[in-house]
């Protein structure tokens, strides 16, 4: 009796399974086939959207490419490091995908590996050094791969100069810098920032001798308080690093650790609350995206690395069929910065945030609010604009003019900002500037 019951139960279960599988099969087979279209794939690092910086900028570039060129962007967010290669492969295996963008230096290995496997697909990396890995592994750079790197040292020089001038004006002895993991890319930021501050001191000497106070009187190799926190994700480390810098008298702290800026912001917010301030000093300086809106009135400016432009230009090059030729002529590495030209066309990627840049990024915050349902913007767009404008107007115009002068000189080539990518160069500059 029991056995018959088990057999009956087994028979019914099998029947149900067969019906379900057939039903699902029928459903799947009757799906309409997908229309082929031009797709670009953006594969992000761990963290994906919502960092209000690097990854969000990359997707913004993809969105703009969708809007301007009619392409379709597909996103692949890596949940763990083991996802880099499978994500890139999945994107490359799709016949409609013409460009695969890997966002972040950690994807360099994976890009070099997968680009080799798919020679007829175009690959671009943001901030990657996949070509140098390709040379190591395969003996030559890959023709279908482009590392898109930026002249962060020049942008950092601009904000370094801004910080130095503010410190002199407000009679503060230091400016600060909170860095992430000590990798060669960050050395460019570090030395550029310090160099910019140093340039500002010479500028004061030659143009505004009445400002010879505060940081001007700090010894040359002690003007910048800096530390490497060893992380690009632990926000508390940003707070812990910035707090003592402000306590020691830094007028502004430069965030070179992505989301750690939110930790720095917390340190500033604490001081603001304690002293009842509605705008800085103390300030902090944003990085990668325009972060001026995060705490309007306290973020004096941001060093914008136009990652979005990188994705946008890469897409444009693929659409114009120029990707391979430009990759060949540039040695597989596209550098975007201040005044940089690619094949005669101006393609810039670094700037210090201006008021007009603010609106684009407030939009990004609005979109993030819609996506996550959480409040991202600290106030209404109009209030934010008003506060930032007020903060900028409150600083004397000679400060902004001086920074603009530096930018013009960098663009024309009159000054050369050191690009420290080797340990020896870094050590040399640290010996001089601290």
């Amino acid at each position, binding site marked *: 009796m029991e056995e018959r019951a088990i057999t009956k139960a087994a028979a019914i*279960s099998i029947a149900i399974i067969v019906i379900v599988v057939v039903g*699902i099969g029928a*459903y*799947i087979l009757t*799906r309409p086939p997908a229309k082929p279209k031009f797709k670009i794939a953006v594969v992000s690092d*761990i963290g*994906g959207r919502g960092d209000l910086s690097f990854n969000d900028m990359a997707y913004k570039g993809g969105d703009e490419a969708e809007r301007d060129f009619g392409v379709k962007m*597909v*996103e*692949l*967010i890596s*949940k*763990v*490091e*083991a*996802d880099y*290669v*499978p*994500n890139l*492969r*999945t*994107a490359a295996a*799709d016949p409609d995908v013409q460009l695969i963008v890997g966002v972040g*230096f*950690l994807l360099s*290995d*994976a890009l*070099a*590996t997968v680009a080799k496997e798919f020679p007829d697909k175009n690959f671009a990396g943001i901030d990657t050094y996949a070509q140098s890995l390709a040379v190591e592994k395969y003996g030559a750079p890959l023709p279908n791969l482009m590392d898109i790197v930026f002249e962060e040292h020049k942008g950092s020089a601009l904000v370094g100069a801004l910080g130095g001038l503010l410190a002199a004006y407000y009679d503060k002895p230091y400016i600060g810098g909170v860095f992430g*993991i*000590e*990798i*060669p890319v960050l050395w460019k930021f570090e030395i550029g920032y310090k160099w910019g501050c140093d340039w500002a001191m010479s500028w004061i000497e030659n143009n505004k001798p009445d400002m010879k106070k505060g940081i001007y009187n700090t010894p040359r190799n002690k003007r910048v308080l800096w530390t490497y926190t*060893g*992380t690009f*994700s632990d926000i508390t480390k940003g707070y812990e690093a910035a707090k003592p810098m402000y306590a020691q008298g830094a007028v502004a702290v430069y965030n070179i650790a992505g989301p750690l800026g939110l930790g720095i912001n917390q340190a500033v917010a604490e001081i603001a609350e304690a002293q009842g301030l509605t705008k800085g000093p103390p300030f902090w300086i944003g990085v990668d995206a325009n972060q001026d809106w995060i705490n309007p009135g306290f973020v004096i400016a941001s060093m914008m690395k136009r990652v979005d432009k990188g994705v946008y230009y890469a897409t444009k090059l693929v659409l114009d069929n120029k990707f391979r030729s430009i990759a060949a002529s540039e040695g597989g590495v596209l550098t975007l910065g201040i005044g940089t030209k690619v094949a005669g066309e101006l393609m810039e990627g670094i700037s210090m945030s201006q008021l007009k840049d603010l609106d684009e990024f407030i939009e990004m915050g609005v979109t993030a609010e819609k996506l996550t349902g959480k409040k991202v913007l600290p106030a209404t767009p109009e209030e934010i604009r008003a506060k930032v404008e007020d903060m900028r107007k409150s600083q004397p115009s000679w400060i902004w003019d001086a920074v603009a002068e530096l930018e013009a000189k960098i663009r024309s080539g009159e000054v050369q900002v050191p690009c420290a990518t080797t*340990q020896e160069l870094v050590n040399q500059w640290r010996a001089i500037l601290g």
Partner: protein
Amino acid sequence: MIFKAEKMVENLKAISVPLSRSGLAVVVGLLIGALLMLIYGYDPIMGYYWLFKGAFGSVSEFMETLAFATPLMLTAITFAVGVKAGLFNIGAEGQMYMGAIGAVAIGGAIALPAGIHVAAATAFAMLLGALWALPAALLKLWRGVHEVISTIMLNWISFWLVTYLAIYHLAEPGRAERTVPALPTARYPVLGATLTAVIFVSIGLCIVVYILLWRTKLGYELRLVGTNPEAARYAGISSWKPVLTSFIIGGIAAGLAGASQIIGRPPAWSLYATLGNVATLGFDGIGIALIGRNHPIGGIFAAIFYGGLLHGGRFMEYHVGVCSELVRAINGIIIITLAIPELLPIIRKFLKRGVK
């Protein structure tokens, strides 16, 4: 081992009940996941179609799934062999980190002849994993310290110790975000996708543990101490040997899991300074063990299933547009529903003991 048809039918009947329970759990998990997808406006049928097609649909994708599964079947053993001995050993995470840094040290920082380099790195990793399990074992045996507390604390000590070693002593010069990569002589041969021959070692270890637990006297004593400690004591079995064995086996398995991500996983062949490429694998192993009914062989299948979820999720994201956070939520729900059948008896046992 006499082959009798009757015995086979008996065995089949014995497995059929837990198997059908697991089957029911899978269905429930998939249904809840489908409900989540419907709520957010995604097509659940196409979603699951791509999930399974992506994970198992082609040879190279299946190999990728296996690559994800390899460390999981091992950390599952750590927990499972603990449960078999009546312990709640959640130290796989910390023991795995030690195994990983051990593999880096021998595989990346020391040059050895090609024939023995791989074996030496693997053995050293397993040794470090076992050594890291010892403090918890000794504290339990000597002072009765509950292993949940000791292993969690040891996990954190291991995390910071390994991070320190990775950043300050074993970092690749000029690339502070990871350690030196394993030298070519220390790498397992790549089979395809990111799968290497280390999977054979992993499956081999699972089989060895199975044989140990069900075919040796020590294994029998271990299981008896776990199911019925009073009876074991009455039978004159001292508990220290089985408990120590359980911890050490767990440590060896976890150490191998750590090594598998270093000398067995292209393209990085190294440990990230954030320990990102090994993080959470130890804790995931607990869920895998529960799905696999705390059985070393069951753990292999459970790991392959979960590896499929981990790998297949990106296809759901890519072709159906399901956002990656939702994919993770669905994975989590499926794991929870699958773990429940095995978790209930443990909870019941715990409550009974508490009442007594």
